[in-house]
């Protein structure tokens, strides 16, 4: 069983998972397809990666992904639009009885997560206790034993769940945030026992469940040290770990090299009037061409953040992927639908990103070129709620008005 935070969640400036982090997580899934875990609690930390997986259509999901998705639980993560859980709130497993003729033991595993960090857009967290009460009541109808898998740092909150939710036999909680609080001994809250996952699974948790002749359950908790001195290494696991490390490293190198390559080509073309167009359609001439007539507008632009939109990429090579250029560069007509790494995007957000390609206007400076009819929809294509939550069109326009 997995109590949560099994994926990495280092994010880029805009809150998206970095390319190397996605690669790392893909390998975690690969590993779990070969060393299966029966039930995964989706914590708030796993949600961005898991939500991306869930949003892909079934045909796109890899062979490794599909079985894992059927083992995810979370009772308090719901879709904003429907209010329904995005994965199963609980899963019931049947364990054959060791006593002759006795019924199998049905164990329900319910998932709960803390509410930080914020969920991705379209999802929300509901109160733990409310979710726990509802799920425990449903799970009790179809199980003999109810176990909550939780990822909740606050000791007060996990205790509150046990105190205010009748019917939970065991809570297994991942509460450790650092080595300092790496081990928390089990505690009883009323009839519910709470056991804690050691930090980073530096010890494997073991919950032993016993059933008396009268059908009553009792438990014993063990924590098993994991070390490379006495615990034999599994050759398959070792191969996966090595391959994962290599893939992660290669992704980092690819990100850095892609950025370097694009910056090098962009530097050579950024300020020139070399046309970038296709066939008979108007070509991009760069802001340098605009400056020849529109001096005031050019000065306003050149002192704006748009004129330096590529700069933030330079210091963040590990975060780079092609989608960064959608908003941190100027897309020429050729770039749309083609490979940006061929070097057809201009650096920074230049005049033509908003006004369109200017070659016809340069050739014949008639009025009517470059009018923007719906500025709001235009600006928010980059200044989205996720990326620029404070963005207000009127305030922003005042800064670049020309």
């Amino acid at each position, binding site marked *: 069983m997995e*109590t949560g*935070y099994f994926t990495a969640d280092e994010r880029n400036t805009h809150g998206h998972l970095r390319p190397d*982090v996605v690669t790392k997580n893909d390998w975690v899934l690969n590993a779990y397809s070969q060393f299966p875990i029966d039930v995964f609690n989706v914590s708030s930390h796993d949600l961005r990666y898991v939500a991306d997986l869930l949003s892909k259509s079934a045909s796109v999901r890899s062979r490794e992904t599909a079985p894992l998705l059927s083992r995810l639980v979370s009772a308090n993560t719901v879709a904003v639009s429907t209010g329904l859980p995005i994965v199963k709130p609980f899963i019931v497993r049947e364990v054959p009885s060791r006593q002759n003729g006795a019924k199998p033991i049905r*164990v329900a595993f319910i998932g709960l997560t803390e509410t930080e960090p914020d969920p991705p857009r379209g999802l929300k967290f509901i109160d733990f206790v409310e979710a726990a009460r509802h799920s425990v009541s449903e799970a009790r109808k179809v199980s003999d034993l109810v176990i909550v898998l939780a*990822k909740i740092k606050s000791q007060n909150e996990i205790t509150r769940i046990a105190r205010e939710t009748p019917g939970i036999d065991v809570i297994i909680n991942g509460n450790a945030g650092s080595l300092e609080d790496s081990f928390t001994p*089990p505690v009883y809250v009323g009839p519910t026992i709470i056991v804690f*996952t050691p930090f*980073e699974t530096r010890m494997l948790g073991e919950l032993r469940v016993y059933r008396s002749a009268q059908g009553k359950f009792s438990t014993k908790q063990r924590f098993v*040290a994991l070390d490379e001195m006495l615990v034999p290494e599994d050759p398959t696991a070792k191969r996966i770990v090595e391959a994962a490390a290599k893939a992660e490293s290669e992704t980092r190198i690819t990100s850095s090299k892609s950025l370097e390559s694009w910056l090098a080509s962009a530097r050579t073309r950024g300020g020139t009037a070399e046309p970038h167009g296709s066939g008979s359609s108007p070509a991009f001439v760069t802001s340098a061409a605009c400056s020849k007539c529109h001096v005031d507008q050019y000065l306003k632009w050149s002192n704006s953040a748009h004129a330096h939109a590529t700069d933030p990429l330079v210091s963040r090579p590990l975060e780079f992927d092609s989608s960064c250029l959608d908003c941190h560069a100027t897309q020429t007509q050729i770039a749309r639908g083609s490979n940006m790494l061929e070097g057809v995007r201009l650096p920074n957000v230049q005049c033509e990103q908003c006004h369109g390609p200017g070659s016809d206007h340069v050739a014949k400076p008639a009025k009517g070129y470059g009018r923007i009819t719906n500025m709001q929809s235009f600006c928010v294509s980059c200044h989205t709620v996720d990326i620029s939550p404070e963005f207000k069109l009127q305030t922003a326009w005042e800064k670049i008005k020309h």
Partner: protein
Amino acid sequence: MIKQLKLATTFLIATLVGFLQIYAAAGAQNQPGRLFEIAGMNVPFEQRVGVDDGAALIVHFSGDTRGSLDVCG
């Protein structure tokens, strides 16, 4: 001099007893009876995974691995 030594020894013992009482109380609060055991690094591998003691089922649990596939011993 002897009087001072006696006084210091008495103070030390009193402090030690007080500390042990506080420690024992904290332990009792966290561990009513014998709630858990640790199979540490000194335990041979075969015994770490545990013997068959008649348990109806065993749940192994992990968490907080944060994308790492390495063993953290």
